[in-house]
């Protein structure tokens, strides 16, 4: 039992170790670079660490920042694993938030938090999922590649949100595209008082583990993997290829939409069209986590800690610009992509070697 479990988890562990190695090297390089620029390296690292995890509050704000990243990361990871190249998590995230804000400021069911909060979260997830299905529909029945349609639908979602925030959802007494603040009783409850630990974090973690189990252990996950790796074989094996692609797209969009709803109810409490680039960052998180839900938990936490720490450093007397964190993130992604590209090229070369003699095809 022990061996079986760890045998299964072994490759994931290697991936995590590799990612950790890359992150460590890049962080060390970044601190070295900061030292060269004249920032005291020890103090910098100390401030950074304490800002990210020095207190319960710091820890909680890191986790709260990681939470939407985890959900958009899951959205990208689940989809990529099944060969559905959904890069529209940003739009799905926004629509999820938009639906949640509508359900908590305009259509509060019986004004009961126990009803409104679940409806808002569910509504956000469904909205994100349906937004994803639009792209999948276009691919299946109108031959528009998902990569293109999802990225274009991001802009549609952005302007849709802006229109709604300047129209029916606009706060009273402002000209900005901004919703009213959600009433305090509809905020996600905290499980540690006076911190940012809201139950959305737990929800996201549970969802990640659930998705991992589904991906690794279930028939659905197996089919999704086969569909993603080789649709031709999946079709020949009479697997429901189209259905799986639509389902995966819905799940992926729903993760992103749920991320938007949780971010809104748990963290920011009112909506503008600029809610951060969580959707795009999610792709990076998923790649760093090697598309494995458990890996994505770790990589999203890492990004959350990096970000929160960087804000504290920026606020401190050192005033190192927060964009330094973005530079580090970008560097890590770049290195990971190069590594992934190398292994991909290797496997593809092996593949070509195997397939090449059969290329002399019939007319």
């Amino acid at each position, binding site marked *: 039992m022990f061996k079986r479990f760890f045998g299964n988890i072994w490759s994931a562990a290697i991936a995590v170790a590799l990612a950790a190695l890359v992150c460590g090297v890049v962080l060390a390089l970044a601190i070295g670079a900061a030292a060269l620029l004249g920032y005291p390296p020890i103090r910098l690292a100390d401030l950074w660490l304490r800002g990210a995890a020095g207190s319960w509050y710091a820890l909680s704000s890191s986790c709260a920042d990681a939470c939407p990243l985890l959900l958009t990361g899951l959205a990208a990871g689940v989809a990529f694993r099944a060969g559905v190249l959904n890069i529209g998590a940003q739009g799905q995230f926004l629509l999820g938030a938009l639906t949640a804000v509508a359900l908590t400021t305009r259509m509060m069911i019986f004004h009961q938090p126990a009803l409104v909060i679940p409806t808002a979260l569910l509504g956000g997830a469904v909205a994100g999922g349906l937004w994803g299905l639009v792209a999948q529909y276009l691919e299946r029945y109108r031959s528009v590649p998902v990569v293109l349609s999802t990225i274009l639908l991001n802009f549609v979602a952005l302007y849709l949100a802006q229109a709604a925030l300047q129209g029916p959802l606009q706060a009273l007494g402002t000209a900005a595209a901004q919703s009213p603040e959600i009433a305090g009783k509809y905020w996600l409850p905290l499980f540690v008082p006076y911190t940012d630990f809201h139950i959305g974090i737990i929800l996201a973690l549970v969802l990640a583990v659930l998705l991992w189990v589904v991906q690794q252990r279930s*028939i659905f996950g197996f089919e999704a993997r*086969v569909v993603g790796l*080789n649709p031709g074989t999946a079709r020949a094996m009479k697997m429901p290829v189209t259905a799986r692609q639509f389902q995966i797209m819905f799940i992926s969009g729903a993760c992103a939409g749920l991320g938007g709803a949780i971010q809104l109810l748990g963290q920011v409490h009112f909506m503008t069209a600029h809610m951060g680039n969580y959707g795009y960052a999610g792709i990076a998180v998923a790649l760093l986590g090697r598309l494995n839900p458990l890996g994505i938990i770790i990589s999203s936490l890492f990004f959350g800690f990096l970000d929160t720490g960087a804000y504290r450093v920026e606020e401190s007397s050192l005033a190192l610009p927060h964009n330094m964190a973005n530079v580090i993130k970008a560097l890590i992604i770049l290195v990971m992509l190069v590594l992934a590209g190398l292994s991909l090229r290797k*496997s593809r070369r092996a593949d070509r070697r*195997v397939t090449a003699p059969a290329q002399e095809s019939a007319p």
Partner: protein
Amino acid sequence: MPGAASRSLLIGPGTDDDQSCSTESIIYAGLHRLTSAVPRGWGAWMTTAHPALGLTGICKSFGGVCALDDVTLEVQAGTVHGILGENGAGKTTLMNIIAGLMRPDSGRMEIMGVPISTGSVRAARSHGIGMVHQHFKLVENQSVLENIVLAAGKSLLPRRPRKLLQDIDSWCRKLNWPLELDAPVGTLAVGRQQRVEIIKALCGGGKILILDEPTAALTPAEVDELAAAVASLARAGMTVLFISHKLLEARRICQSISILRRGKVVYSGSIADLSVEEIAEKMVGVKMDVPRLTPSARPTQGPPMLELVDVDYRIGKRRPPVLKQINLTVRPYEILGIAGVDGNGQSELAALISGAVNPTAGRIVRRSGGNASVPIRVGYIPEDRHKEALVLPLAVTSNLLLRQYRQSPFARWGFCRYGTWRKHSTDLVRQYDIRCRRIEDAAATLSGGNQQKIVLARELSQQPELILAVNPTRGLDISATAFVLRQLLEARARGAGIILIHGDLDELLSISDRVAVINSGALTATAWPQATPVEIGRLMLGGA
């Protein structure tokens, strides 16, 4: 005679025009010009000892599979030289090497006695080699002229557009092909597109023209026109390499041929010395150690499991049907072999029988034990196992379970039971002798033969009543081939009905109870295995 071709023909390679060829070849060319008296003028040039193209010891393998094995051949200038061979014999690989698209593992290549560097398209082009691929490399929404300029330009803009236009004009005149230079290529018929391709290749090179299966997409009338054009090019001193697996065509068009079989040149010389039967025999080859159908095997019996009645199939309404009036039946305890030259409708027939597509007309009846309402268990061994039968990055176990993963012992409540998977696949690995280090290894790490064994194990282990196998031994070595054929025979002995669509005539005849021949989408005849390969070969080529 105007144009680049005649000039370079007279002067030989390595002239001041060849800015792009390597220093090495320039030096070689210079030496060549110094040491050998380059004959000037047509008559002398035609009689030089140097062949237009000489290949020595060309080898090329793709991961353990040898595609070309020590290929040596010479092609004389001013001839149409046919390269014949079955699918997978290595024809296209060889042409890609000549055109510089692939680098051989070893071997040398000479043009007019001048060694040229292999693996460089530029070097090949500067020595006058132009290739027309089987699948055209044209930009459909650009005009004819733009396509030709695209290929001729070394830089962004052709340096001498007027000269290029003159070239195009002279080639068109020579071939008597009027060409609308401004028409978008996509609006032209296939035959016209091919002309654009040929003119393009001629303008780029002008000494050796490679035509890869040029007649595959043409109507008979267009084939005649092409043959005339090729003949006139050869008369003008050009060398044409004509790739085909259609014997009669090759006989009409080519003066000399080389026959490739499994990467080896088995014949090279004049085509007039060989009869069609001899060519077919050399192409197909005869192998000795192939499992044979034993006479004592149980006789064919029972009601048919599969019936195709007057089945038509066409892709797109305006195209002619790919399959016409197909009638066939398969009964238990028999192997129905379907022979034919590749591309005569075999893949479409396989898709129909496997249920991937539906017939345009006619009906397909599958019966389990004579009962049409019970779904029949079908085992399918597709032609392209990488695209239709395996998921290469997944473990051997997963690949072995691709059919049964959702059935009762292997899954419960929507979850996979990996314990039963492991047990089942360990059994299959032992039973079918699949050589892998661990069953968790990715299928991609196995050799082609062992990959095919995975497919066989999966498809045959669930005791299918009907088996459809398409070229099941393609790319396999002798022992793996024998294994596959033996497995099919065992399945037959268990009572399965088997359809074997196979390009290897010898293997087909050795294990089939009945053989039907498919030609141009029609099952032309049903011959019994007493027929010799030569007779069936003649049927395959459309003869009576």
